[in-house]
């Protein structure tokens, strides 16, 4: 009997999602498995509806890139109750406040993700190499949109790394954006107006960092720039030296691994449950560009 797997993206207008979905599809095609890819257009209830539609169509397995960790529990339960194996991609399921990413929501077949805290930690380690020694460094954090766990997770990891390295630093500003380059640019402009002496900008996504780079350049500041993502734009920016470093997140790989895990669960139902498939987030600087093949 031929297998059909469903994949529910968070929002296919976001390259990250597209890359993950493509990774999933590619792997599925390679294994000769039919896929149904649905788009939740960033609305949690639409995501829930999509999962229901998949359940209604009696697919053999579901992979989902949850828009929201906590909310996702509901339909993971629902899928489980129809004992359809379900795999979460990139975002954990269950309150990130209460559970570290490693302990996976029991009803999940598997979680394929990067540890955001660790990603932040890696970014922090890059920062350590860039920051001036001997004096307290002024650091500005360009956050993503409020309401995303990534925001505090990466910040947390970032700080951990700095503290661990015993750097003296001050977070002089930490402002939200909407994950877009133009907002990143304006936020950095304004931060530089308030604190011309910023030594380093930590942008929580490459999109912001490339905008931020413009602001830094046009303000004639010498602040260092660190991003997070390893998207094509980000890597290019590093290549041309606009940006100093980023951490590489590989949605394509996630999608691929997600398929593997799901396919395994479908083919032998007795397999392991709630396993955590970690996708590492290597540090990328001009020196180590080879580390990261941009997937989005």
């Amino acid at each position, binding site marked *: 009997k031929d297998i059909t797997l469903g994949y529910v993206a968070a929002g296919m207008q976001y390259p990250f999602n597209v890359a993950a979905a493509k990774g999933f599809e590619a792997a599925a095609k390679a294994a000769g498995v039919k896929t149904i890819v649905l788009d939740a257009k*960033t609305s949690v209830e639409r995501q829930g*509806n999509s999962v229901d539609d998949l359940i*209604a*169509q009696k697919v053999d397995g579901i992979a989902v890139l949850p828009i929201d960790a906590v909310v996702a529990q509901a339909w993971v339960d629902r899928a489980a109750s129809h004992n359809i194996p379900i795999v979460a991609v990139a975002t954990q399921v269950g309150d990130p406040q209460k559970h570290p990413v490693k302990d996976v929501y029991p009803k999940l077949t598997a979680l394929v993700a990067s540890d955001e805290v660790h990603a932040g930690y890696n970014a922090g380690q890059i920062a350590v190499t860039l920051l001036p020694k001997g004096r307290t460094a002024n650091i500005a954090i360009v956050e993503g949109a409020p309401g995303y766990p990534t925001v505090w997770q990466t910040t947390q990891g970032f700080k951990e790394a700095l503290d661990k390295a015993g750097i003296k630093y001050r977070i002089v500003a930490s402002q939200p954006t909407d994950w877009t380059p133009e907002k990143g640019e304006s936020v950095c402009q304004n931060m530089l107006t308030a604190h011309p002496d910023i030594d380093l900008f930590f942008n929580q996504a490459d999109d912001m960092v490339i905008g931020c780079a413009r602001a830094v350049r046009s303000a004639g500041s010498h602040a260092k720039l660190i991003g997070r993502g390893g998207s094509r734009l980000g890597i290019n920016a590093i290549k041309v030296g606009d940006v100093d470093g980023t951490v590489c997140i590989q949605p394509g790989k996630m999608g691929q691994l997600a398929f593997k895990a799901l396919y395994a669960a479908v083919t032998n139902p007795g397999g392991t449950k709630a396993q955590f498939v970690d996708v590492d987030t290597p540090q990328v600087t001009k020196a180590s560009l080879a580390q990261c093949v941009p997937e989005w």
Partner: protein
Amino acid sequence: MMNLTTSTHSGPSHGGNGSSGGPTEGVTATTQTHATDWRRLLGLREMGVYYALILLVLVISGVTVYTGRPSYLSVANISNVLYQASLVAIIAVAMTVILITGNFDLSVASVAALSAAVVVGLADTVGFWPAALIAMLVSVLAGLLNGAIVQYLGINAFIVTLGTLTAIRGVVQIYTDGRSLSVDTPDALQAMRLFESGRLPIAVPLIVIGATLLLAGCYFLVRARRESRNVPVTSFGMLAAGVCCLALVGAGGMSLAMPKPVVYMAVFTLIVWFVLSMTNVGRRVYAVGGNPEAARLSGINVKRYKMAGFILCSAAAGFGGILFGSRLGAVNPTAMQGAELTVIASAILGGTSLFGGAGSVIKTLAGALLLFTLTNGFNILNLGANYQGVIEGTVVVTAAAIYTVGGTRRRKR
């Protein structure tokens, strides 16, 4: 004095008309009005949105059959679509009312999110039902705020609700501290499930409602015929609706059951429809939207009716929020962001005028169903994400075109 007036002119003036072939002309004219009414009755302008919906369903089910997928028109899938539409539909119905009163509310999605956050946030500590009550109160307050600013400061509703859209979303941010909330205590979850999930048997009520609608329709029809006036549109609506109800039962059998939100949606819509089209209040609502000054000078308390519109709208949003929160037992700060556009789109697809004075909640319902049938169809047909946007946009415009182009008389209706 009656007699006096009549005797002074009605007699003579008839004579006057007679002198210029009046009677005959009168007859022809009336027959004409009958004719035109019939045309109008089934014309695109009146029925457009239904036609659009039916067309869409036919197309999709056609394709599903053709591509040999499981039948699209299964009761299961229908109830799915209804379930998915229910939340937006409930808010859209209220939005229709506020649009009829000539106002506008962009803040519904934020209000819903707030109410959801409140419910989820408090359910653990005070229990679900009290939490729900508080959430409703909060929502009503939001409505009062909107209404007060618009009515008593006289600021444009669009900008006000655009402001509250941002502000209330901000409150959600603060309340949730930018994190997702979830309910943990089992009995709260239990209560939520009781309120939101599961299905209700609706065969019997449907039969009852269908029958009553049929009877009422016939009654009106007969009475109209007897008094040889041209037939009221609503009576046909009733007949049609009645038939639909019974058909649904026929398809689903006596064991037919629907998800609770669908039932809530149906009940709410029915109530609002009844109030709007059957009661004084409804008539006044339309008058207030159609010409506030005239309404005011006819002794209608315009301000109050407009306020009521805002409150109803926010209350509905609040209820939607509670459903939303209970559905997932959790809420994220960005919940329902942007839903307001879907809501308004449903209302306008239903032919509601943005300038007030015209609109029908049933058609709004059809509008909402149209939109969700579309996305549901996309999922069923596994249409590439890239193409959905284009298709959705085109369908929306086409649907609007179908009944606007239908006829240009009665712009305002």
